[in-house]
Each structure stands twice: as structure tokens, then as C-alpha cells.
């Protein structure tokens, strides 16, 4: 009898854990997009006033940000120093394929960033950064829409699914 109840409790806990993971992934998406927005704002500022070359710019942005995404920019600087590809976009793609822990939306934004970098004129380059920043803000807005309800929903759904499964199994 007790084994049955322990099994039911484990089923509920496992499903609840999936709900928790979904909430975590959602928050991670948000956090990475926010980090990227901050990095982009810093890059735009640094470019406007100092015209810093890209590898240095990436390192400075990483240093400034001190976030998990900052490490990605340090790696990008290393790829650029190593002349891994003729343009920035392929360097970015190589790096994205290597680092699998970047959330999907941030990965898409980084791909856009890679394509926008390498303009001949500063204003064109700043517009490119601005476009990626807009993309991040748009995605953040979408994520923030009914945010609390969604997060609660994932958790409740996990627990309810677990309970339902436990009842079925009992």
C-alpha cells in the first residue's frame, strides 16, 4: 500500500518538476534577452563615442555585463581574433552551434546581430544594433504578456498532470 502512495507522490513530484523546468526556461529566455539588450545598449554607446573595433568591443561589453551571456561575447572575440571566418555572421553561427545553452530567442537575436555587424559607416552600424535591440524588446514584450498567469499555469499544469497520472495509475 505504502509503495503505491510513494509511487503516486513521485509521479506528482516528477510532473511538478517538469512544470518547474518550463517556468525556469521561460525566466531564462527573459533573463538572456534582457542581458542582450543591455549589452547592445553598451555596444551602441561605445561605438558612438569610441569607435571600438569589434573584438575589443565584445570583450568590453562582456566585462561590463558580467552576465552568463557575457562569456559568449568573450568567446566571439576569440573567434574573431582567430579569424575563424571571413565575416562576422559565420563566426557567430560557428559559436552558436558550439554553445548549446543559449535560449532559442536569444540565439535568433544573436544571429541577427551577426548579420548586422560589419557595416562601413557608423550610422549604418548603429541602425543594425538598434534593429536587434528592437527585436529583443519585442520578444520581451511578448514574454511579459500575461506572464504571471503563464508561469502559474505551467506549475499548476505540471502538478495537475502528475496528480491525474497518479490517480490513473492507482
Amino acid at each position, binding site marked *: 500500500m505504502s509503495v503505491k502512495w510513494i509511487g503516486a507522490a513521485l509521479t506528482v513530484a516528477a510532473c511538478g518538476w517538469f512544470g518547474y523546468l518550463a517556468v525556469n526556461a521561460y525566466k531564462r529566455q527573459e533573463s538572456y534577452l534582457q542581458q542582450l539588450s543591455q549589452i547592445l545598449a553598451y555596444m551602441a554607446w561605445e*561605438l558612438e563615442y569610441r*569607435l*571600438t*573595433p*569589434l*573584438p575589443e*568591443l565584445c570583450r568590453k561589453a562582456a566585462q561590463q555585463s558580467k552576465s552568463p551571456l557575457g562569456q559568449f561575447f568573450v568567446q566571439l572575440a576569440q573567434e*574573431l581574433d582567430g*579569424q575563424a571566418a*571571413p*565575416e*562576422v555572421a559565420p*563566426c557567430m553561427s560557428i559559436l552558436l552551434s558550439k554553445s548549446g545553452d543559449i535560449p532559442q530567442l536569444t540565439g535568433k537575436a544573436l544571429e541577427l546581430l551577426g548579420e548586422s*555587424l*560589419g*557595416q*562601413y*559607416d*557608423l*550610422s*549604418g*552600424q548603429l541602425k543594425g544594433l538598434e534593429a536587434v535591440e528592437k527585436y529583443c524588446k519585442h520578444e520581451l514584450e511578448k514574454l511579459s504578456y500575461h506572464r504571471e498567469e503563464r508561469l502559474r499555469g505551467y506549475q499548476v499544469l505540471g502538478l495537475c498532470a502528475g496528480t491525474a497520472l497518479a490517480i490513473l495509475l492507482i
Partner: protein
Amino acid sequence: MNCAWDAFLSLLPQDMRHEVNKQGAKSLQELRLRLGQPVEMVLNGKSTWLSRKARPEDLSFVVNSASRYSPWSASTAAQGYITATGGHRVGICGVCVIQNGIMTGISKVTSLCIRVAKDFPGIGNGCDLSGSVLILGPPGSGKTTLLRDLIRRRADAAWGSVAVVDERGELFPVGADFYKECRTDVLTGCGKAHGIETALRTMGPTVIAVDEITAKTDCDALMHAAWCGVDLMATAHAASIQDLLQRPIYRPLAESGLFQTVLILNRDKSWRRERVRL
């Protein structure tokens, strides 16, 4: 192997470096990449061709390695050239982007000309360095190289300092091991007219040196500096003094009598001294 040559090789795609290093380590003057055409190497004034044809990614690689993936940071990229680490100048041709009548970039690069920066200490030995010096010559005749050596000699000999307004970063480039006298102040990256004015006001030089004067504002700034009691060292594109006098931009400068010494360079790198006769 010097670091300027290493810097030059690092501009090229990996699969091109070995061949260029093998054939051109000692005598390469220019490397030209034209989209879809064999790569041209100019060795001691003569062209040889690599069997390899230039691909779009090769051109992108050179532009990006010259600017460290940041054409925007090279303020001159939109004007059609980038000075790479080591002082090598990458000239860019392609489809220009014009906004409000100003060239803001190049949308498609179709040709590149990479000029190898070289240094020959002592080539200016024998030049009389008193007063102001103007070096004339056609492109590729060695004006910048001679000016660099004359700056060294002048900084070594002069009481006071030599201010170098190095707009293109070719005289004493970053990443090159070109020897520089300790009494030399280099202002890199700013326009010549503005740079001359800045150097004059802030550095208290006895000599101001500029490479390739091309605009009326440059000539006006030079004359203004000379009237303030500073000696000048400059280069210009011209085949002779007569050629110089025929150009409306240069004529006032030549007529002002500011330059006591005019050195005329030939394509074969030989030079002669002339006086301005009006």
C-alpha cells in the same frame, strides 16, 4: 621576418599566405585581388599572377581582417581605403553607397589593392635637411618611406620636436616595428588641416610633417603653420615642380616659397633635388 610582414600575411586568407610568402617575402610591393580574376602580385614593379582566383569570401576576409571585423572603426573605410595593422593600405573598389551626396560605404566590394608598407632606415641620407622639405613623386615612388626616414633624421638632429600628422596611419603605424626617434609626436587618424592646427597649438613643434597633401585646406594649414615659424615636411602627388605649379590647389603653396628643398622621386625610387623657380 619582421612584424610588418607578419601583419601583412595575416590580412590574407589562410590558403593564400604560403604562396604569397614564398614568392613575395622580399620584393612584394602590391597585391591585387579582383573578383573572379587571378590574384596579381607586383614584385619590384613587375606583375606575376597566382593561379588562384579571388572569390567574394577572399575579399570579405581581407576587408574584415584589415579592419578587425569593424570597417566602421576605420573612419576611412567609407572613403575607399583602410590602413591595416602594420601600416599596409588596403584600397577598396566596388559599388559605392551615396547618401546626401556623401559616400557612406561600399555595398559590394569587387577589387582590393593591398600596398605593402616597408621601411628602409637611412634612405634619406644625403638630403639637406635645413628648412622645409617637400617630396614630390607619382604613386608608389616611395614618398612615404622617404618622408619617414627624413622625420627620423630631423628628430635626431633638431632641437625641439617633430609633430607628425599621420592621417592614414602609414608613417608610424600601429603593429609595425618602424623605428621612431624619441622626439617625435604622432597624431594619427585625424584630418591633416585639423591635425596641423592641433599639433601647432598643443605640441609646440619645431617641425610638422604630413603625408600626401591633397586639399586646399591642407595647403592653407601648412602655410599658416609655416608663418608661425614651424618648418614643414610634406609629400604630394606630382611628377615635377612644373606639374605642381600647374595645379590650382598646390600653386599658392609652391609660390609662397616656404619650401627650401624640393625632392623629386621617380618610379625607379631614384630622387633628385630641385629648387622652386617661378
